[in-house]
Structures are given as C-alpha cells and as structure tokens.
C-alpha cells in the first residue's frame, strides 16, 4: 500500500522564522509529488515535483524532491501569520491515485 509520511505533525514559529517541512514516501510507480496548503476550506495547490534536485520556487516558498532517498522538503522563509495552515504532501502513482500524508499544521505567531 502506498504510504506518505509528513513531519513534524505540527509546528509553532514566530514571524520571520524559516521552516522546513518534510515528506517521505513509499509508493509503487511514482509519477509526481505535490504540495498543497489548506487553510479553512479546500486545499490549494502549491507545487508539483517530478524530477530530483530541481528546486521549485514561488515567492518565499520553495520545494525540492529527492527520488533516490524518497523524500521532499518544503521551505518557507520569512514566515508570516498568513502562512498558518496545514501543509499537505501527496504522491501520485500509477492508476491515477493520489495518496496524501497526514499533513503538517503550521502556526505562525506575530
């Protein structure tokens, strides 16, 4: 069975801090890894990663994938209170299946 594990489960930081969220996976027929941000309602898409070592960047957020070690990290620099959310990692395998991790709950204090 496909498995996606995220750590830490929760994290509290202060504005301006830098955080690193981790995602490791065990899936058959890996196709891509995706990061989502979930605030109050629906998850919203952040990044999709398919190749090792290529950093994806969007503003203060960046992510990278290591297909050899089977993990990805999501970095957020200069955190703001608006970054408070649950960050979900998901892995797409064959058969059109997307398996989610349990998420990391990030709280950014002023």
């Amino acid at each position, binding site marked *: 069975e496909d498995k996606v594990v995220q750590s830490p489960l929760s994290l509290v930081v202060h504005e301006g801090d830098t955080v690193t969220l981790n995602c490791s996976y065990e899936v058959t027929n890996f196709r891509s890894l995706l990061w989502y941000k979930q605030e109050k309602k629906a998850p919203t898409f952040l990044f999709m990663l398919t190749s090792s070592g290529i950093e994806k960047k969007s503003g203060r957020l960046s992510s990278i994938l290591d297909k050899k070690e089977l993990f990805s990290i999501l970095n957020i620099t200069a955190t703001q209170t608006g970054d408070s959310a649950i960050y979900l990692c*998901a892995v797409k395998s064959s058969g059109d299946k*997307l398996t989610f991790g349990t998420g990391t709950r990030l709280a950014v204090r002023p």
Partner: protein
Amino acid sequence: DTAVSQTPKYLVTQMGNDKSIKCEQNLGHDTMYWYKQDSKKFLKIMFSYNNKELIINETVPNRFSPKSPDKAHLNLHINSLELGDSAVYFCASSPLRGGDGDTGELFFGEGSRLTVL
C-alpha cells in the same frame, strides 16, 4: 465562477438516514474524485471517475455509492449513515489522466461537512 462546487456545504443528520452530496465542475476536466477528510485532517481517496467510468474504488463500505451522470458531475450517495461517517467530504477534479495536461494537480471543492448524530 466556482470551478468545483459542492452542495450542501453543511449537513447534519441522524444515524440511519440516507443522504446525498452533489458535485459539479466547470473546468472541462475528465477525472473527478471524492475524498474524505477525518477529524485529524487526513485526506483519503474514496472514488475516482474518468469520463463517467469508475477508476478507483478504495476500501469504502458499499453504503457509499458514487454516481456520475456526465463527466462534469459526480454525486455521492450514502445509505444508513453511521457516526463514523462524520467528516468533511471533498470533491475534486483533474485534467485528462495521462494526457499532456495531466500535472497530477487536483482542483478541490470547498468541502461538505457531514455530521451524523
């Protein structure tokens, strides 16, 4: 315009009742999904339909029956509701499976919070 819309957003009902949640997407996507998110925020796939055809059917009680009248709609009917069915149910869609537009990204609806008393 809302890309993926679900109704109702909130549903409170008694054990044993039957209820339905409707989902519509106006993105022209071929694939639609139902996910269940429990109280610990764990998102787990239930069903996936590609162009009205059932593709993924995870280990879900047969009290749950999806129906896709056309590729823009995927409804979820639940019979004989149980306490453990209380959760937020998310509908999602994605572009053509395996095609050039298939980035793996899911577009989620806002969720339907079901509470079974």
